[in-house]
């Protein structure tokens, strides 16, 4: 039996996963950085 796969589905799946993964990693890192620096500045002001 010859299995016919739509190759573009695999290409789009890989693309979406990497784009989302990269954006989430960058966003998470930036948010964590801003949160930590704000907390440090707040502790310094006290």
């Amino acid at each position, binding site marked *: 039996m010859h*299995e016919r*796969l739509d*190759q*573009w589905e*695999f*290409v789009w*799946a*890989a*693309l979406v*996963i*990497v*784009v989302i*993964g*990269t954006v989430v*990693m*960058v966003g998470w*890192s*930036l948010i*964590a*950085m801003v*949160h*930590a*620096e704000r*907390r*440090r500045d707040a*502790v*310094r002001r006290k």
Partner: protein
Amino acid sequence: MHGFANPARFLRIARWLLPVLLVPGLVLSFGAIAWGVAFAPPDHLMGVTVKILFIHVPCVWLGMAGWSTIAVSSVVELVWRHPLAGIAARAAAVPGAVFTALGLITGSIWGRPTWGTWWVWDGRLTSFLVLLFLYFGYIALADAAQRDAAGGGSAGRIPAIFGLVGAINIPIINRSVVWWNSLHQPPSITMGRSAIDGTYLYPLLIGALGFSLVFGAVVVARMRMLLAQIQTEARLRRKALG
């Protein structure tokens, strides 16, 4: 090198370095992927799935580069006691693990239509999966060591030693397709030459550069985060001790 050991000097550099790395990195990486997906011709054997090359290869390279960063930083921390080296190693762990996971996922997606299987326990895939587990172990060790250091302990060197020992996996991953029979293809890009046509090679290299800049930006952001956490804990400890 110790001229950059001052956290205040590093933070002054990091403030402008972060956007300088991040913006061109995102433009180059997503632009190269878009170019490759839209304009690179299908391969005569793999068809359009060859376009996953522009996504999978940079992720794998950065997964390995992340652990290499940890290993080099660990050497600097252990030998020269550079105060920012341990922080750099910890900062590289999460993006390295993320790119390793993305490399495994995209490789599996590429393998299904190309090899007829999502996974095979050959040398390349298995050693790369081991790398992901090594990252998890390093992240857990580094977190535990930081908590121990905050409490006055001396476990700070253990993550660095783990980072050095784990580095043995990098040449194993690199040579696995040469040493063992594997479904994975042999190396196409080696020192000084490439077996890949220019229509694939140039977007691949531009995409790899873009993702590398993004990796650098995330490392800088996480170093700033870790430094801020350490400075906060130190100040709270000084206040608690009066």
